[in-house]
């Protein structure tokens, strides 16, 4: 043993030294900070904060030792995150200490996308961007600038800068995600409700893969319900997801036919008199038209469309209405699937309405809200030009402040109705978030100037002219966020550690630009003043102290149900009722009741490409987080063994996947867990940015092969309308 010991120790010492040397070269910044931390005094602090790795806003408690974040623990006080922190939330530490992170402002010196950068001072970066934006304004007007961002606590400052600058062209993420589902429920109920999965007895989900695309508290409530046998879950999806594996019944529905299934359910429920007559009479309008409308949509007809047996559709409709009002057709979130997505979600909303699950335990619940104060800043003149995406003409019902992203891209590319010459981007990666990457690259080519604010060098940042590095969420204080819901809460994100690089919070970046654009007066406040104003109207004593100490506040006690179920309640719709039949839709030139159109099927040699998520990646940037990347280093193409055999494809073989707009190479995963007419790939790989080193040119980006299509009513992107050819490379 003595020999072993000597050899082992000696060998390890030598090996350790070499390894450390190699690491120092590439990760110098990080290691230096870690070492500094180790030698610093052994002070341990716990700071409550709010996670920013996905849209859930879970409450976390950061453990800080020697000035470094060592651990993030769940904060049980948040009724939405329910005492948990998922893999993404736990891995947020690595966002701060990521060697790939943006560490100082940079200006592009080579060609766009070439990756040649000059580190510059903040002054230089601000001066450069302000000069370019001012040039665009003087040549083409302020409306020639585009301001795109995605949701986040500091997004408000970015949007305000765009508006103060005079541009109407703010564009946000909803039409790449959930615009169709939100609009469908708003059109029906006048609001988008929450779903009380905790108390529901019968849940149906169309492709809402809640056990892999984690949404709080829905995912945890559904696990409790389904696993404790308190609820039955019926799940429709062309893919055998984890949700399918946990469901009581899984139907590999023919893609794009969910609307047929729902219409047939409505047909059965009305035909068998199973709807809630009292509720329908008291709170809805258009039931007779609906009853007439669904007559042809029989279960036998739906069987042909969906490949779900008619007897099952009838049985599910009966079980569903028997369980009412504790029954839910769950809405889902990313509803950017098909060109008729709005109508599919509308049918869900109507089905929910006629069983009377509105504002009931185990049903749909209008969101409770909590008040907060507002910081009063100097107002600016409204932008004068109309929006470049012509939203009012083409999508009169859509949310104007969010814009319609794909229509906007079409218009920017055509230069009509007017040219867009500068593009400011905050916290968004349009190159991976939008389909048809070649088109986005073309849009980039047409810009005189692109500025990107981000924590990491996203693909979009890689193509920018100037990059402003934002401090990571653990390094900054953000505005207070009110989270409506069945269990409403207020969350606060306070600075946990000092920035380790030359980065700034978004507000400071906005102020730096505003000052040079002559707009400084509109942003003449500090984050502390902003937050203090918001604390002022919170319904709790000593609000500021409470939020700093706890990071979250939620009203105690049980949620309240039935507040809207009074004879004098007016829903925020044209008629003041829940609109089964919608005159507003009819006036806007759309079907007032959901009309089914069979989806076009892929020709014999093609497959429908479908997208989805796993529990540890939500956004395109998370695959480059070293702790998450460990679980999946490369994405692959799921293909059923039957077509795989026909095409001579084996697991691990490299494939060429081609659509009408592009072609990618990625490895095959031959799996029983998908329908033979579909293929599936995961989002977030095949990056163009070398500063996403773990996924740079690893696997493939879905954005390269997805075609441009959108839902007619909401303008929401339709990501599941692309047919691809698959062959061994």
């Amino acid at each position: 043993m003595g020999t072993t010991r000597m050899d082992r120790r000696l060998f390890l010492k030598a090996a350790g030294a070499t390894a450390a040397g190699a690491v120092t070269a590439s990760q110098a910044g990080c290691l230096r900070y870690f070492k500094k931390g180790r030698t610093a005094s052994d002070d341990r602090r716990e700071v409550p904060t709010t996670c920013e790795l996905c849209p859930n806003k879970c409450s976390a408690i950061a453990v800080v030792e020697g000035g470094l974040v060592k651990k993030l623990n769940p904060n049980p006080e948040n009724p939405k995150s329910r005492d948990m922190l998922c893999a993404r939330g736990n891995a947020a530490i690595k966002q701060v200490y990521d060697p790939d992170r943006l560490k100082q402002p940079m200006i592009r010196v080579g060609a766009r996308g070439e990756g040649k950068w000059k580190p510059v001072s903040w002054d230089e970066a601000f001066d450069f961007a302000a000069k370019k934006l001012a040039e665009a304004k003087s040549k083409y007007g302020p409306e020639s600038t585009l301001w795109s961002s995605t949701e986040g606590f500091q997004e408000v400052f970015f949007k305000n800068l765009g508006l103060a600058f005079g541009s109407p062209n703010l564009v946000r993420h909803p039409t790449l995600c959930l615009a169709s589902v939100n609009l469908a429920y708003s059109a029906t109920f006048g609001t988008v409700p929450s779903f009380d999965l905790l108390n529901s007895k019968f849940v149906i989900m169309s492709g809402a893969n809640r056990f892999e695309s984690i949404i709080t508290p829905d995912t945890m409530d559904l696990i409790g319900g389904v696993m404790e046998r308190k609820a039955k879950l019926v799940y429709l999806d062309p893919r055998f997801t984890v949700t399918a594996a946990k469901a009581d019944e899984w139907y590999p529905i023919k893609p794009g036919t969910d609307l047929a299934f729902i219409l047939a359910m409505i047909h059965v429920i009305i035909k068998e008199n199973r709807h809630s007559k009292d509720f329908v009479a008291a709170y809805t309008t258009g039931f007779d038209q609906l009853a007439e409308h669904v007559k042809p949509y029989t279960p036998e007809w739906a069987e042909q469309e969906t490949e779900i047996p008619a007897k099952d559709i009838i049985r599910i409709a009966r079980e569903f209405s028997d369980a009412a009002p504790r029954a839910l057709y769950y809405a889902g979130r990313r509803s950017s699937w098909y060109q008729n997505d709005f109508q599919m979600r509308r049918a869900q909303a109507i089905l929910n309405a006629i069983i009377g699950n509105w504002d009931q335990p185990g049903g749909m619940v209008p969101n409770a809200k909590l008040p907060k104060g507002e910081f009063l800043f100097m107002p600016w003149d409204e932008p004068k030009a109309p929006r470049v995406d012509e939203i009012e003409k083409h999508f009169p019902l859509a949310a104007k402040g969010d814009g319609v992203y794909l229509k906007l891209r079409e218009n920017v590319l055509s230069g009509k109705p007017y040219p867009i010459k500068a593009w400011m981007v905050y916290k968004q990666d349009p190159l991976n978030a939008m389909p048809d990457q070649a088109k986005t690259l073309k849009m980039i080519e047409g810009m005189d100037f692109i500025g990107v604010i981000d924590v990491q060098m996203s693909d979009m940042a890689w193509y920018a002219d100037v990059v402003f590095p934002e401090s990571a969420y653990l390094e900054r204080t953000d505005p207070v966020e009110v989270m409506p819901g069945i269990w409403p809460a207020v969350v606060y994100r306070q600075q946990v550690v000092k920035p380790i690089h030359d980065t700034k919070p978004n507000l400071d970046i906005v102020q730096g630009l505003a000052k040079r654009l002559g707009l400084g007066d509109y942003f003449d406040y500090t984050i502390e003043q902003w937050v203090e104003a918001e604390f002022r109207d919170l319904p709790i004593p000593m609000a500021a102290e409470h939020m700093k100490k706890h990071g979250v506040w939620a009203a105690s006690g049980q949620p309240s149900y039935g507040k809207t179920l009074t004879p004098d309640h007016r829903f925020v719709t044209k008629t003041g009722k829940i609109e089964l039949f919608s005159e507003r839709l009819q006036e806007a030139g759309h079907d007032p009741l959901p009309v089914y159109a069979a989806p076009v099927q892929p020709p014999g040699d093609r497959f429908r490409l479908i997208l989805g998520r796993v529990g540890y990646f939500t956004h395109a940037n998370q695959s480059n987080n070293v702790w998450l990347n460990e679980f999946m280093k490369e994405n692959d193409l799921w293909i059923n063994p039957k077509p795989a055999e026909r095409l001579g494809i084996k697991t691990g073989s490299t494939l060429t996947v081609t659509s009408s707009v592009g072609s990618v190479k990625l490895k095959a995963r031959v799996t029983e867990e998908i329908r033979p007419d579909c293929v599936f790939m995961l989002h977030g790989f095949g990056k163009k940015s070398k500063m996403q080193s773990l996924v740079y040119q690893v696997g493939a980006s879905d954005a390269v092969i997805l075609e441009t299509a959108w839902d007619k009513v909401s303008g929401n992107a339709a990501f599941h309308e692309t047919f691809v050819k698959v062959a061994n490379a």
Partner: protein
Amino acid sequence: MAIKKKRYALVIDSRKCINCKACAVACKAENEVPVGNFRNWINEDRQGEYPKLRIDFEPEQCHHCEHPSCVRVCPTGASWQRKDGIVLVNDDECIGCRYCMIACPYDARYFHEASGTVHKCTLCSHRIDKGTIPACVETCPSKVRVFGDLEDPASRVHELLATRRYRVKEPQTGNGPQLYYLL
């Protein structure tokens, strides 16, 4: 008051596991586990032919056995067991011979390249000693793992083991594993 005997164990409801990996990342952060190594993991079992399919997940980590073979084979006494059942490795005494890694029926140990010693799940004993629960138990969205003291009748592990059927893995080894999987 006499010091009560303790025996820590985990009761695992695998059906609730959604393979989200929160436990693995929480452990990584809490215990500074190097990239490439894990102290806990999730086994996957995928079966069937389309469309009759099933996927089963099973979280696993050190079983903190009653009679741990890893402790028996350790030539230096570095692998040891606390009175409360937690199996640990004393880093100063470990010579990195990896006998314990071979002796463990669950493959629950890994060799730590930087220290030249063997590392493993400690059941977050540093947390337990302060009266809190292991990081993997705390962070889990579906609360798959239940941590508790088998000697404490008020502990939830007692209730679960008394009212539900369960199994342990590889009982034939005689190690007496203390990860109880509910059926």
